[in-house]
């Protein structure tokens, strides 16, 4: 469940990288370490809580970096570089308005309810707040979506590896699938999270040299923006230029749909209710650490945009018409194009490793959240109940293997039916939006009834899909681009979900007040009143300071791109 970008990943075949033994040595070392983490984490798994949620015991910097890594999958890196090559500096919106406010909201406002209520998953919160219908619907949809996205990541990896390294697609799919299977089955979430933390640094080590060299090659930021302004017009290197209502711009969205559709609905839906993200925070060792998880992640998120946007812009500046037919390159080629042209063996190996690591982490985040939802939310609650805890650990390992096999199957399917896959991906992305409506109304309005959750989810999802697949795709309403249509569909899903929830609530019974303790704003559960751990009262660990700091920093970053 990426923040939607929808560039199907295809790479130009001539981008074969000149890798040698040195690059493969660096790659090999990484794979050994990945497996080593799995084996070493194995001895820490005793209970199902250890396997699925790291025993709720990890420090905030670890969960925070894992939180950002789970999002920093390679489809995001390549996709956002492609976005920049195509649309220019508009890409910053996906970060500064399309991520930071939602991450801060998750940390400051929602996390006390998530973490304090001791739920193990996002659907489990819906079970407590609403009823089994909402719970089952969200669990099943999430499980399907997670496998689908894991498979899409795997397929994208296979395409990139085939283009860059010349491995056949099936080899890449099987090898990457095997490594993810091995380390999650062995060490559970701890192993997934530790690998994500490691991957965060490897990705930085890959992207920073590319960005620096690309910037040098185009003559610094001034040279870059001069070239692009000449080729693409003044708006290309600004964040808001041409986004007035009624203006035409390549993104096909105006400032209102950017702020509401991307900044509010899509981004809050993705960051606050996508379990693959929230799971990282739920594994933190106490409420303060859980709150700080998305806040610590927000700071790198503010700056990572430069590491994907500058390579994308540089590619657009270096090759006239980059991404179009005559240039011979796809938009997605931006980063591989620079790797090929600028990196000598050594750093090239680090960059290849970073890219593969990012693909695997994107897959692993989905697999490790899938096994949790499938085991604790579907299997343990509806199928095989009340067994001893070790049974569910065994089952979790088994379902991890099943999940990886299913994603490998999905990846092979995707290689034959890639249009269907991008269709499905769009379809599932609309599920996050009504999830967010249901959460936000459920958390802030205690009158929202037990049944309203299910109907809100259903209505919101349907409305977003109808808007996208019927009204937009059949040209009943006119929206210039897919991105613009995404934003509008998200807004439609949000409004429909909210209206239906309110309407259903007015005609059905509310949840008894004593069952809402700690789930609705203004109530507290026993889990929330735990005293702060020693040292957590230091000023730099205050969630409010971190959160508002991130929001202000993101706003300041907009200034040079706004005039």
């Amino acid at each position: 469940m990426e923040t939607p970008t929808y560039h199907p990943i295809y790479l130009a075949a001539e981008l074969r990288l000149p890798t040698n033994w040195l690059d493969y040595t660096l790659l090999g070392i990484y794979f050994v370490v990945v497996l080593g983490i799995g084996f070493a984490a194995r001895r820490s798994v005793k209970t199902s809580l250890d396997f699925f949620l790291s025993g709720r015991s990890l420090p905030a910097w670890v969960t925070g970096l894992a939180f950002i890594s789970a999002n920093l999958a390679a489809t995001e890196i390549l996709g956002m570089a492609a976005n920049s090559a195509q649309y220019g500096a508009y890409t910053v919106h996906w970060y500064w308005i399309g991520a930071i406010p939602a991450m801060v909201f998750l940390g400051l406002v929602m996390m006390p309810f998530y973490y304090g209520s001791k739920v193990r998953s996002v659907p489990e919160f819906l079970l407590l707040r609403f009823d089994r219908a909402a719970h089952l619907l969200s669990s099943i949809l999430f499980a399907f979506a997670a496998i689908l996205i894991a498979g899409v990541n795997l397929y994208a990896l296979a395409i990139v590896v085939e283009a860059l390294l010349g491995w056949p697609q099936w080899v890449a799919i099987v090898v990457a699938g095997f490594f993810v299977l091995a380390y999650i089955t062995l060490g559970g979430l701890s192993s997934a999270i530790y690998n994500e933390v490691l991957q965060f640094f490897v990705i930085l080590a890959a992207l920073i040299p590319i960005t620096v060299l690309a910037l040098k090659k185009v003559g610094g930021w001034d040279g870059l923006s001069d070239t692009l302004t000449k080729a693409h017009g003044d708006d290309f290197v600004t964040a808001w230029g041409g986004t007035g209502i009624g203006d035409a711009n390549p993104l096909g969205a105006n400032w209102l749909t950017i702020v509401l559709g991307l900044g509010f609905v899509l981004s809050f839906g993705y960051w606050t209710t996508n379990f693959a993200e929230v799971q990282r925070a739920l594994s933190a060792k106490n409420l303060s650490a859980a709150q700080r998880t998305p806040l610590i992640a927000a700071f790198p998120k503010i700056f990572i945009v430069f590491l994907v946007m500058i390579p994308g812009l540089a590619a657009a500046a270096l090759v006239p018409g980059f991404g179009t037919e005559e240039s011979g390159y796809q938009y997605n080629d931006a980063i591989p194009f620079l790797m090929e042209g600028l990196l000598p063996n050594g750093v090239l190996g680090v960059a290849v490793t970073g890219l593969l690591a990012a693909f695997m982490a994107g897959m692993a985040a989905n697999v490790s959240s899938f096994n949790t939802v499938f085991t604790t939310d579907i299997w343990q609650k509806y199928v095989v109940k009340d067994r001893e805890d070790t049974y569910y650990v065994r089952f979790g390992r088994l379902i991890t293997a099943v999940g990886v096999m299913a994603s490998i199957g999905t990846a092979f399917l995707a290689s034959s039916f890639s249009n269907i896959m991008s269709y499905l991906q769009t379809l599932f992305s609309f599920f996050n939006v009504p999830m967010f409506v249901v959460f936000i109304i459920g958390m802030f309005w205690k009158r929202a009834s037990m049944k309203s959750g299910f109907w809100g989810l259903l209505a919101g999802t349907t409305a977003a899909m109808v808007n996208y697949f019927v009204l937009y795709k059949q040209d009943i309403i006119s929206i210039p681009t897919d991105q613009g249509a995404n934003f509008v569909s998200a807004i439609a899903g949000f409004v429909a979900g909210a209206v239906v929830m309110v309407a259903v609530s007015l005609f059905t019974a509310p949840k008894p007040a004593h069952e809402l303790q700690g789930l609705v704003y203004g109530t507290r559960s026993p889990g929330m009143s735990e005293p702060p751990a020693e040292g957590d009262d230091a000023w730099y660990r205050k969630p409010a300071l971190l959160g508002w700091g991130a929001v202000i920093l993101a706003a300041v970053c907009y200034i040079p791109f706004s005039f």
Partner: protein
Amino acid sequence: MTDHPEHPDRPRHPGWSEEDVQRQVTELQEKSETAARLFDIRRIIGGLFVVYGVIVTIAGITDDDAAIDKAEGVNINLWTGLGMLLLGLFFLAWLKLRPAAPAPPPVEPGDEPSE
């Protein structure tokens, strides 16, 4: 929540309540071993980046002109290698100076810097 009426004979899953989840998670958390037995990731990050740093720095020192010309005249292997080496050493030093205290479950010491 203590005013919740007791139903000793009610079926166990009439729709889960917060108490069920809290009880179950609290029990599991008491038996959890992660805090006590999970290794420290700083050791792995430090180790990997020191190894990467050394390899890539050596590659930078021995690079011929072709490699340097390719990278816009920058000895990018050398600089990236040194950067990775420093990052690795930083994590090892952090681990040495602030080792994770052995955690007596269920209460965790909060003595690790968060960033």
